[in-house]
């Protein structure tokens, strides 16, 4: 490819705050991070390995124990390169919550991946560019969003898919996500911003890329639900959460995105807001990965004031009582096959949806179990991972088909693609159901 002049372009993807960026900065904290004490905590029980969905289906993948503590130990003893198998890890972070000995596995993997990409991967390789493109979805999305119909048409063409696979290594098996005809931010501006003002109850919404460009209905549902409870919603400027960048070892890109987010969100906190996310990978990233990998001013503060959208209402409002009085009309939502995303599981949020939906008259969510969907963000988009991704997902597909429901429910945009891809079901976000229950019971005409 002839775009090789791009690689070290500091004004590359994701930089909204180019002027603040110092070109020589190469994530020093993550690089210098001393993870050996963490490695020493490992007593080789292999619990992490038995939780790794990739190792379960791929005999070639040595698993989290090797990627984490063993690799870090080896590195200390010899001048050893990071093993290329680290790129097979999907960053689902299941190993993290498995380890009984508090070994910081995902932090080790993120750091190792960063080092591998920086030192061992050719910046001219197709793989590097493909990964960089996938990781920086955020910078491509505005283009698609500008001409959504054309973009949807073009990405749907078989020749585009063929090109994607042959030239870029993006699997042709998948439907690229459709762009909404109006982004959430466009809608927000047109609407005139917040409809409720309330200096005592304020939240700043971190919508992430997907809810903005692809599923604005999720973001609108969040606004509706929060305004219903009297919150003033702020929508600060933001960049990608960084999740796809961590997963691809693009720590430098992630760092830039994180810096923007931390400063914008810290400013919102100063204005009395708490940070709310509707995507579990976004909240995971802000709460856990930022403080693990970066230390911009305010990182810790932003992390500790970030909440999952539903969790926040549970703690600050009597959500249960509100839902107990609510019902969803008609047959739009009845029974769901619910999949808890790995990144929700890691935050202890996996039981929440089922608990709450049980309260709503006429709606039920059947948990399809604790298997991983297998797509893990950009992972399942790569030609070489597609098969593994579908093998991992098989258990979830089966459970979905056996569940008493014909619709799917989840909080993660990429899990939702995989669920739809594997079963053909329509997939909804929990917030959409809450919005239907709370708003439509209130004022039956408000649905658009």
């Amino acid at each position, binding site marked *: 490819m002839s775009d090789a002049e791009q690689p070290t372009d500091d004004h590359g993807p994701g930089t909204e705050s180019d002027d603040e960026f110092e070109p020589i900065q190469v994530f020093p904290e993550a690089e210098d991070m001393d993870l050996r004490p963490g490695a020493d905590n490992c007593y080789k*029980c292999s*619990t992490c*390995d038995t939780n790794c969905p990739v190792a379960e289906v791929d005999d070639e993948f040595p698993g989290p124990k090797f990627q984490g503590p063993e690799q870090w130990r080896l590195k200390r003893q010899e001048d050893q390169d990071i093993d290329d198998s680290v790129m097979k890890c999907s960053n689902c972070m299941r190993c993290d919550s498995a380890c009984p000995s508090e070994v910081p596995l995902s932090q080790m993997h993120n750091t190792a991946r960063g080092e591998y990409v920086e030192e061992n991967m050719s910046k001219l390789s197709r793989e590097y560019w493909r990964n960089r493109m996938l990781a920086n979805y955020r910078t491509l999305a505005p283009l698609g969003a500008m001409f959504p119909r054309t973009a949807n048409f073009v990405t749907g063409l078989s020749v585009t898919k063929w090109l994607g696979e042959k030239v870029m290594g993006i699997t042709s098996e998948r439907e690229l996500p459709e762009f909404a005809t109006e982004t959430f931010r466009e809608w927000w501006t047109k609407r005139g911003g917040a409809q409720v003002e309330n200096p005592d109850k304020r939240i700043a919404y971190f919508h992430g890329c997907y809810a903005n460009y692809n599923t604005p209905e999720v973001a609108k549902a969040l606004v509706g639900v929060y305004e219903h409870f009297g919150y003033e919603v702020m929508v600060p400027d933001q960049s990608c959460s960084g999740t796809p960048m961590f997963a691809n070892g693009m720590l430098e890109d992630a760092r830039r995105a994180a810096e923007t987010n931390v400063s914008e969100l810290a400013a919102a906190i100063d204005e009395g807001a708490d940070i709310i996310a509707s995507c579990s990978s976004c909240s995971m990233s802000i709460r856990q990965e930022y403080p693990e990998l970066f230390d911009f001013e305010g990182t810790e503060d932003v*992390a500790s004031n*970030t909440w999952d959208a539903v969790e926040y209402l549970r703690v*600050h409002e*009597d959500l249960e009582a509100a839902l107990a009085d609510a019902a969803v009309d008609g047959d739009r939502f009845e029974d769901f096959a619910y999949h808890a995303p790995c990144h929700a599981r890691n*935050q202890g949020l996996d039981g929440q949806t089922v608990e709450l939906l049980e309260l709503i008259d006429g709606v039920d969510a059947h948990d399809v179990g604790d298997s991983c969907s297998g797509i893990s963000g950009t992972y399942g988009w790569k030609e070489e991972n597609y098969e593994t991704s579908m093998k991992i997902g098989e258990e979830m597909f089966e459970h979905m088909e056996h569940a008493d429901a014909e619709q799917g429910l989840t909080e993660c945009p990429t899990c939702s693609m995989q669920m739809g891809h594997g079963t053909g079901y329509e997939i909804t976000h929990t917030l959409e159901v809450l919005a239907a229950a709370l708003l439509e019971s209130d004022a039956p005409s408000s649905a658009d």
Partner: protein
Amino acid sequence: MAIEDDVLVIGGGIAGSMAALSAAEHADRVRLVTYKQSTLRSASGLIDVLGYTPDGTGPLADPFDALEELPDSHPYQRVGTDAVREALDLFDDIAGDAYAGGHTETNALVPTHGGTVKPTARYPAATAAGLASDDRDTLLVGFETLPDFDAPLAAAHLEAAGVPFDTRGVTVSFPGIERDDAKVTRYAHLLERNESISMGGSTTGAREALVSIVDAHLEDESRVGFPAILGDEHADEVRASLADALGVDVFEVPMGPPSLPGMRLEDLLYDALGDAGVRVTSGVPVIDYETANSATSETASDAVAADGGSDRETPDDGDGERIDRVIVDRNGTMIPHHAEQYVLATGGLIGKGVRSERADESETDATGVVFEPIFDCHVPHATDRYDWFVEDAFGEQPFARFGLETDQELRPLQADGTLEFVNLRAAGAVLGGYDFAAEKSGAGVSLATGYVAGKQAGTQVGEEAGK
């Protein structure tokens, strides 16, 4: 506001699951909050009640006889023998066909992967055909890529231990696995899904391939034992289909960590929690608490670091303080959880429910502290760290008994014998006064104390609401 429940159980191992299940029989809203995965995933999946007495006598044929003789400080003595029986009854209800052993009070003798014979009270159905008291001749099959189970050696050990049958071991290669360090879940997955693998130029299902390999070694044995990797969610089906094809009984030999039988037991307990309507929050730790009269407390570990962990402010009255809420750390955000009653089932030194550290930064300082990190409950221990161990690795290790002291209702006690909190109970490995590894009593103590703590907590909610 906080997340509201009647009973909140902290810790999701055997003790916590059992506590939540027994609490749910008496209270409506029961929640279990657990952090990392429990030691169940490393444990064998066997339910040991008591295999040896604290002075090493054993293996015991009847654990119940010996329970009566245990020292007063032992958790079994706190709850009483009847409670141990009731807890096992509840476990039998929950486990249904998945476990055997409930027909008798005596211990069963189960061959282990090392070729020893272990006395245990309940064992997975997958292990049932392998009991050492059964006199049928046995073939043990190990795999080259799974060095933890050396079948010929295990067979030799079993014969040396005097089992009443002939036993032979062979080592074969597992169809479809190349790596030496393949995950046990990978073996299970291959068999469970009967994935196609290529063998000798043609492709065949993993089960058929395994059967053909093993069949070639089978002589006149009427049962075959494999390491415990025969499937995960549909282990029964895998075992039955292998048995069918081989024309003999098939059983699993419990393995060391990581252990599929332990994982299956975990699944069984979590399914039961779901059926009982217990809300489960996992992946996040409880890190702190607030009492009714303290708006915020210092985190227990801060307090420990600052004052050596010895004392906390004394309770307002003789009855002890009341916990109002605990704080769950969700990846950085602090979420309050309120309940009427709490059960602490956070495990021992391995599960991290009890922790130890140097009292002093300096390398030469011998003093250390042992503490319970959430509530800073009193943990008796010697100040000198060198008194925590004895030289003899197989000797009686004081640290193995580290844990909380409680009253008869399993409420933790302070150093002076008064209650730590009126609405807190403790269960499982977080308790002191027993050495599960030496006695072979791990799962049994967790079941019995979990059962009692949960029942007390659940009925207490009912009573207080009734007042």
